């Protein structure tokens, strides 16, 4: 009896997690925000389902296979999220770093040149003061 109650509670929590995630994906303003809501459904809900199977079945093959599926999902979720964000970023900005390829290097060189020039000016002014 207690096992059934615990199982039902775990399953209800899993369903609520999935429902909340699905609603979050539907109402979030953009793709970056939507992706946040995939994580609970991909990580938290499978843990609850695996726990429900474990409570019902005990430690046997069925529980083991559910846990294997859970491990695959938990391992895949961060890589998939990262790849998705990267792809969306590339589509929007042309490069995942947020600027076209090569632009960053040019900016860095310009910054370095400016710093070098300022340093030279400071050195020359110090030299004048010393004289």
């Amino acid at each position, binding site marked *: 009896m207690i096992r*059934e109650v615990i*199982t*039902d509670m775990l*399953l*209800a929590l*899993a*369903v609520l997690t*999935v*429902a909340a*995630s*699905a*609603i979050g*994906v*539907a*109402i979030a303003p953009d*793709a970056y925000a*939507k*992706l946040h*809501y*995939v994580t609970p*459904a*991909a990580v938290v*809900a*499978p843990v609850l*389902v*695996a726990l*429900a*199977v474990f409570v*019902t*079945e005990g430690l046997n*093959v*069925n529980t083991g*296979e*559910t846990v*294997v*599926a*859970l491990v*695959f*999902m938990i*391992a*895949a*979720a961060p*890589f*998939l999220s990262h*790849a*998705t964000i*990267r*792809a*969306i970023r*590339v*589509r929007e900005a042309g490069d995942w770093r947020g600027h076209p390829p090569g632009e960053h290097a040019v900016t860095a060189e310009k910054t370095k040149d400016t710093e070098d020039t300022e340093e030279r000016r400071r050195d020359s002014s110090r030299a004048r003061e010393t004289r």
Partner: protein
Amino acid sequence: MTSFVIAAVAMLIALVPAGITLARGTLADAVIGFELVTSVAVMVFALLAEGFKRPSLFEFPVILALLLFGSGLVFVRALERWL
């Protein structure tokens, strides 16, 4: 009907908002909706296998969880390069 089957059906019903996003959203939104739906499909397979007491069906969620990673990456790469 056990609580596992009821939970599986409830999860499928709960996916309706994500399905709407998948069907009507932008391409990026659709890929995210696809990722959510496949994640939930893994759980639905596990719940149905437990609900109908078919131990052999527990292999489906394991295989689908593996394929979820590969298919997700393929979709994302296609989104990045060609779409």
